[in-house]
């Protein structure tokens, strides 16, 4: 029988050491290795600090796993405020019975993700909860990044006429997870878009002063982020359906499940509000980056208002509201 994680591994003693050793073997660096109660860091510039918890079923999915998700998710939250992600914490809550080999897979994946995203795990924790009191594994990561002055976009004002861009295909993470969960198979290309956005966003901010707002459309999807922008800054936004980059498998999956990709989660996408005269150049820059080759201009900021409208492919307009319910597959 495969070795499973038990309450012994959460005892704080020898068992916990087994888990910590496995983590250290993969993630060791000069800060973590000290194993102090707090990581001691040297930072001189403005700091961005974020935290997020990752609960996902199944923990392994096409295009990634909970480990990568917990690293890239936090890296992206830092990147969209213009911060260069540097240090992350890693806290694992494991349900008794979780296989040790899967735990090792997740740690190896975290190592790979942190190398890709160029971040260090500098502090962490493990806890084991009784069977039935968790869902296999939960991960919390907090992250610290520094914001260089030229990348600070907080005070740039959105104006009427600004354009809305996205760096690629919409709805891929959410729909791939849903297909996996429901065991619906529709083809080989189904894959989460999970990716770290710092390599895309930071050089973008170095090059363009006309970027006014950035947000990663995770839970609630693109529609929800656009509504947040509209309500926060008091502008009407119009999105053009024919410009939305949506892969064919996503269209097919959303038809089968009755779920709109505009409301499903993305994990490697960023929505950008860009000054109109710079938008084309920003688009070109995005398309020349591996994480932006399907980028497009998807809409514009109109006059004052607090609603988002979708101009359909046939030229009609309808309200694109925030997510109002759980995403559940339709029956009919």
């Amino acid at each position, binding site marked *: 029988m495969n070795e499973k994680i038990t309450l012994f591994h959460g005892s704080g003693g020898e068992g916990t050491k087994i888990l910590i050793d496995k983590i250290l073997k993969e993630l060791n660096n000069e800060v973590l290795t000290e194993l102090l109660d707090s990581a001691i860091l040297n930072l001189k510039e403005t700091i961005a600090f974020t935290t997020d918890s990752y609960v996902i079923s199944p923990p392994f999915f096409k295009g990634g796993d909970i480990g990568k998700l917990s690293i890239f998710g936090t890296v992206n939250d830092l990147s969209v405020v213009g911060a260069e992600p540097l240090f992350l914490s890693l806290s694992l809550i494991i349900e008794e019975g979780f296989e040790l080999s899967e735990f090792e897979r997740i740690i190896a994946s975290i190592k790979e993700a942190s190398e890709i995203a160029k971040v260090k795990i500098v502090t962490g924790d493990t806890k084991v909860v009784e069977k039935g009191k968790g869902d296999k594994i939960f991960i919390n990561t907090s992250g610290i990044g520094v914001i260089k002055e030229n990348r600070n976009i907080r005070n740039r004002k959105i104006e009427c006429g600004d354009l809305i861009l996205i760096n690629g295909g919409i709805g891929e993470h959410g729909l791939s997870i849903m297909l996996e969960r*429901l*065991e*619906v198979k529709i083809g080989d290309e189904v894959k989460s878009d999970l990716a770290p956005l710092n390599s895309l966003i930071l050089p973008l901010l170095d090059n363009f002063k006309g970027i006014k707002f950035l947000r990663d459309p995770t839970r609630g999807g693109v529609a929800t982020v656009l509504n947040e922008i509209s309500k926060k800054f008091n502008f009407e936004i119009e999105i053009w359906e*024919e410009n939305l980059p949506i892969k064919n498998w996503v269209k097919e999956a959303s038809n089968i*499940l*009755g779920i*709109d990709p505009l409301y499903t989660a993305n994990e490697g996408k960023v929505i950008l509000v860009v000054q109109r005269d710079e938008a084309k150049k920003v688009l070109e820059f995005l398309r020349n980056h591996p994480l932006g080759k399907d980028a497009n201009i998807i809409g514009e900021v109109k006059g004052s208002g607090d*609603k988002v409208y979708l101009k*359909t*492919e*046939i*030229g*009609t*307009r*309808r*309200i694109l*509201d925030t997510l*109002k*319910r*759980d995403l*559940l*597959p*339709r*029956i*009919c």
Partner: protein
Amino acid sequence: METKQKEAILKISELIKKISKKEKTIMEFCGTHTHEIFRFGIRELLPKNINLLSGPGCPVCVTSQEDIDYIIKVSYEENFGVITFGDLVNVKGSEMSLNDLRILGREVHIVYNPFDAINIASKNRNKNYILIGIGFETTAPNLGYTLIKAKEMNLKNLFYYSLNKLTPPAMEAILKMGEVKLNGIIGPGHVSTIIGKEGWMNVFNEYKIPFVIMGFEPLDLIYGIYLLVKMIENDEAKLINAYKRSVKDEGNKKAKEILNKVFKVSDANWRGFGTLKNSGLFLKDEFEIFEIRNYFKYEIKSKKFLSCRCDEVIRGVIKPFECPLFKKVCTPHNPVGPCMVSSEGACSAYYLYGEN
């Protein structure tokens, strides 16, 4: 979308505007049609004299409160796990929804494929499960097939609660009640794929109302509506299948065979209508061992929510915004009635797409 297709849609829309002289009410029977008409903004392409009305074609919306209460009672009192599809988990019974039941610690599984019920039940042999058979003719064949397999596997811990309903009797009930004067009907595409054009023959022959079976793409919808408008303006009534790429005259023979093998037709309880004669699919003797109602015969007296007007929305008597609760008390976040719960429900479509 191809430019040609777009042009065709706009051309047909212009044609409709040109020929549509009379005030007319057209009902889209199917919830997915309601949803797609809003989603594509089809209403914007139609003249003001066409009044589109949502019908009862959402299986979640027509599930009676008594049925929800029954399922909750069995699960709660007998510790049965519940296996169901989609939005039904959010529909309130007298005291709670299936989602509330789950929060209280009962097992409630949402599945997409009914076959998952077999996996769940066979992995947990020491626990009993009810598979809720919700849906119209579209979903019933898959559910029937699941029971055929469960029988072959001699699965003893999986039971069935049939909420499978037949759509023509509901259509007939609306036409018979005459509460709303309908001039034309958008026939459901998915259901018709199973029952075929033939499945609507009896209703059509009895009421002679323009009836067009449509698909769900914008061109399907606009063209189908054009056919209806033309018939209404010319005072003629035909039953037209405008969704030939999916609907055959005789329907899906294999699916119908499964329906015949597993189910018998009997009276069923519909929200908004009460009991409709020969409108439900229940298990034949050969499959009766699965029927949960045979084991637990409860007398269910449901508490009605007095102000909720879902009943009338389902029958097309009022539009969602005419309900006093709409948008005020009843929202997708806090739905009072099933029409706001279901993603196919008329109230939720009106809410999400902002029409009032």
